[in-house]
């Protein structure tokens, strides 16, 4: 089995991106201004009582474009350069600092993980305005950090003992790295015309109650300096073209279809023909789902197709392997004591590799060279042959896991915590997908069930990770087909997939050889971070299907005007 992993890594390396430094940190004015102010401030701040023992600046200068089209017209078109700075101050000592999660508080994520963020003027001329803004943001961050540290001290003295007594912080290694990417040019006029054309396809379809066609692009740089001496400049870039369609049944069930293309260059965008065909196809699927029978609650053998399996991997397993959350005494600790234990069938391995930029020609949204705490990214094996090996770690250690494995991630205005990058589940035994469907029918017959279910798409849902809640998950199944023993398929609507965390992965019987990528943006305590999930289709001996909620909203009395026009 180890051999398999090795081979897979060779494949990974072949597709991976190993960007070389192509600039010098000494030539980057923002880095120089930030470093100089860091040096000047830290000299004083480390002598305060209580001291600031670690300080970092993250400055992002990003050109953003967004375009949204509905019903043949532009709803939103925006172009701006966003230049913002976030300051993280750690007060106290690595043993105990201001970031420790309080036992006796129920603060919002924003209160608990929010960082002061300053809108920045350009770093031009004498740099005074820029430096003054850095100084102001630092003052604000340190004031809050000192205040938070007093609260942490009081909480520690008056609360029950902590299960995990490891330190609150481990210093990241010192790094210097400079990578600049030229700004990728997208022909916005062409994209606008393309989206207008695609949007026109929804006209005259009375069941499409709402639709939107979107393009967004970010291109810029992230600058990071800290009191350890790290200086980094790395590119921030991605673009997404997406569309969504919405409909509703008379009994109040809302149905949505969504498709996104994540790219780095314009050449990777779908052609006009491809996009229009995809829109037509999704319109057709929407219509089919709206007239499909309701799926009653049932437990049956099922296949999660590759995209659905990617979401399942992310929601059901990935979030529970995030180290920062595991340190919380209020968390469910599902996997805390399971390092070295079998948690899924032995033919399965799970890794997270943020250093991977592409997979089978698809750009991965979870790619980064250094994480948001300045640690160089590398692949991490989380589960090997079914045995739990590692957690996703940032610079907050856990007992037995004293170092970051470069998964400290967060949006600019939030303190980074351990999050997924590019998570992937691999199977050492695979069959062609058609064979997996045959195996599904065999399982249906074996269990005497009326049919099996094939889930093409899973979307948003939630998984409880707090100890006070049931250890369960529930995910919206957007596109589901029944597969009957005679081989015919029938779409159904209104289903959710739910179940228990520990049982879910052990119900996997086999996998197909059709790995696919699901890129997305994941929201959690450290905000929204781009992320990718890779999985093949998998066969489950049983999954629980529940009913999706309905809306009390009545269907519109009149058809959309576009349908009226075509009459």
């Amino acid at each position, binding site marked *: 089995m180890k051999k398999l992993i090795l081979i897979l890594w060779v494949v990974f390396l072949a597709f991976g991106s190993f960007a070389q430094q192509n600039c010098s940190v000494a030539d980057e004015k923002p880095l120089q201004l930030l470093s100089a102010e860091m040096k000047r401030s830290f000299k004083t701040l480390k002598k305060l009582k209580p001291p600031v023992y670690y300080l970092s600046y993250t400055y992002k200068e990003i050109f953003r474009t967004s375009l949204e089209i509905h019903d043949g017209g532009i709803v939103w078109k925006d172009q701006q350069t966003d230049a913002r700075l976030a300051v993280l101050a750690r007060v106290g000592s690595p043993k105990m600092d201001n970031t420790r999660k309080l036992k006796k508080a129920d603060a919002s994520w924003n209160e608990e993980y929010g960082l002061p963020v300053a809108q920045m003027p350009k770093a*031009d001329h004498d740099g005074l305005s820029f430096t003054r803004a850095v*100084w102001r943001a630092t003052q604000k961050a340190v*004031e809050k950090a000192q205040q938070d540290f007093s609260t942490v001290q009081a909480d520690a003295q008056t609360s029950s003992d902590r299960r995990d007594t490891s330190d609150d912080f481990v210093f990241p290694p010192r790094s210097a790295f400079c990578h600049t990417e030229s700004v990728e040019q997208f022909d916005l006029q062409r994209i606008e015309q393309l989206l207008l054309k695609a949007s026109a396809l929804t*006209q005259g379809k009375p069941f499409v109650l709402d639709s939107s066609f979107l393009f967004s692009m970010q291109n810029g740089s992230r600058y990071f300096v800290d009191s350890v001496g790290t200086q980094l400049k790395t590119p921030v870039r991605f673009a997404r073209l997406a569309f969504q369609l919405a409909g509703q049944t008379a009994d109040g069930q809302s149905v949505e279809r969504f498709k996104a293309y994540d790219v780095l260059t314009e050449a990777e965008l779908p052609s006009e023909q491809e996009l229009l065909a995809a829109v037509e196809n999704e319109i057709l699927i929407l219509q089919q789902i709206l007239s499909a029978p309701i799926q009653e609650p049932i437990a049956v053998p099922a296949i999660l197709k590759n995209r659905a399996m990617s979401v399942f991997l992310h929601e059901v397993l990935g979030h529970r392997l995030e180290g920062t959350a595991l340190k919380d005494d209020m968390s469910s600790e599902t996997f805390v004591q399971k390092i070295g234990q079998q948690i899924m069938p032995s033919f399965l391995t799970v890794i997270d590799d943020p250093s991977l930029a592409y997979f089978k020609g698809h750009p991965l949204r979870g790619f980064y060279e250094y994480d948001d705490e300045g640690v160089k990214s590398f692949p991490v094996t989380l589960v090997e042959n079914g045995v739990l090996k590692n957690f996703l770690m940032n610079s907050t250690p856990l007992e037995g896991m004293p170092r970051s494995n470069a998964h400290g991630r967060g949006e600019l205005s939030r303190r980074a915590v351990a999050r997924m990058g590019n998570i992937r589940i691999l199977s050492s035994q695979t069959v062609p997908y058609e064979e997996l469907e045959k195996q599904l029918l065999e399982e249906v017959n074996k269990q005497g069930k009326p049919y099996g279910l094939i889930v093409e798409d899973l979307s948003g849902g939630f998984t409880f990770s707090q100890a006070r809640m049931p250890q369960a998950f529930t995910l919206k199944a957007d596109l589901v087909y029944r597969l009957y023993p005679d081989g015919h398929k029938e779409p159904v609507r209104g289903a959710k997939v739910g179940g228990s965390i520990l049982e879910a992965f052990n119900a996997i019987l086999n996998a197909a050889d059709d790995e696919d990528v699901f890129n997305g943006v994941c929201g959690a305590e450290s905000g929204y971070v781009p992320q990718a999930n890779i999985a093949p289709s998998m066969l489950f001996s049983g999954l629980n299907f529940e009913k999706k909620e309905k809306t009390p909203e009545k269907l519109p*009395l009149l058809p959309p005007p576009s349908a009226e026009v075509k009459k």
Partner: protein
Amino acid sequence: MKKLVLLLGLFPLQLMAAALPDNIYFKAMKDEMDRSFKQLHLEKNPKPFYIAYRLEKTVPLRGAEASLGELFADHLSSPEVTAVVTVSVGNNQQDSLGVQDGNQTWFMPQWNYGSVADSYKGIRQALWQKTDKAYLQATEMYEKKNAYKRLKQLDETLPDIVPAPVSSYVEEVAAPIGVDETMLKELVQRLSAEGKKIPYLEQFYVSLHPSHREIYFLNSRGSFFQYGQDRILLEVRSSFRTKRGYKRAVSTARWLDTKTADVPRQAEEEVTRILQRVQSVYEAKQGQAYVGPVLLMPNAAAYLWVRMFAMPAMGAKPLLWLDGADDKTSGQFKNKIGMRVASNAVSIYDRPHLKAYNGTFLSGFTPVDDEGIATEDLTLVTGGVLRDLPRSMRPAKKGDKSNGHGRLSPSYFPREQLTNLVIEAVNPLSQQELEDKLLERCRSLELEYCYILHSLPTDNQLERIYTQDGHKEPVDQLKFETDFTARSLRDIVAAGGTAQAFSSDANRWMGDSSVITPALLIEEMELVPVQAQPDKKPFVPMP
């Protein structure tokens, strides 16, 4: 080019169609309105009786912003269209509006913010979605209103609606007036660099953001209007620590009228004024408890007028609350016509047709209200007595007729509200005369000093003026004991001859509105010290 069309009598929508401006906005509104009237019907329920559409298109133009002499990056957004839909069922005697549920969802117009495509199809789609929702909401409220009236045996003789002559106003909507971007950049860069001259100023930010907006309205009674507005938002923000160690921010935000403002001069004046205030607040001493006369400078006086006049004058017709509660959203002036509500030192008017005042853009400009009735100038208070109030088509008492002040806001269907509130001194005094009068009253009360208030309510900026020699001294850390009271208006002793205008965008409770006010001398106000400790000193000296 401007055209004011006043049409007497009620015209069906079809008859008005020919006169509608020829553009996608009116075409989309008319087509969807026609379709809704013909086809929108929930079985066993009344059909729509009244529909009104209002579209507001905002076009941001390229502006400039800088801090301490350094520009911020550019930002440019596309036009944004907002659609507001009002639907009512019933008839003039009883319709589905003028009512609130009580503890349940707030009954308000259907707004579509930020997802309306700026195209014929996009607007139709948005109007369709919101009309449908508004109609269902209207039928539900109509039933509830009827049921409540039966339950309470309310047999009102007053109709819900008193018809009034419908009106239209069409102003050619010209292309946005661009402002030279290079000039704006140079200006904000130069003006914000002025902050460098004050060593303790931590931040000094100046921005100028031009924008253009277009408003289109059509209702089923045959009223319509369209007009465009061009304005520039001037913002100046400063932050610093006072000599006594308190963090302070002295800021301003003003809408300038693109057509009439001398932007560089007005921006320069505002920057100079803010920098003077900064220096004054920096030196400020701790204020002491005080009871006595105060001089409210126009900025502070505007706050008084909004709190104590514009809000009490709103909602002359109370809403019917289905939980039996009194309507707390209806202003206190509704029962005070003919009573003394203010001092006779000022006269108070509402002038909806004013577009700008001394280069300041007036957001209260309203040629026709949101019920489609031509707005009238109102004489609200003379000789201290309340003479009139804003009125909509919903009568508060027998004989009431609309004076064109039924205005939409995010939380209300058209409701009685002011537009441009104008305060004029009966015997206008110069600034010097006002200060002399203030000192005279202070001396008569044997006070050592009195107060001049520059700004309210968040960043109270005050000055003491000493009775002995008239010298002034900045003071900090004082607040009102009990905000303003109804008494404050009757306590106005004198008013200045020079007024300033202040505009605000529509908030949750009120539509776009403006106040034009001079400085006011108030007989008595009570100020108390703010209990606050100095802020922490900077850990590291400012670079």
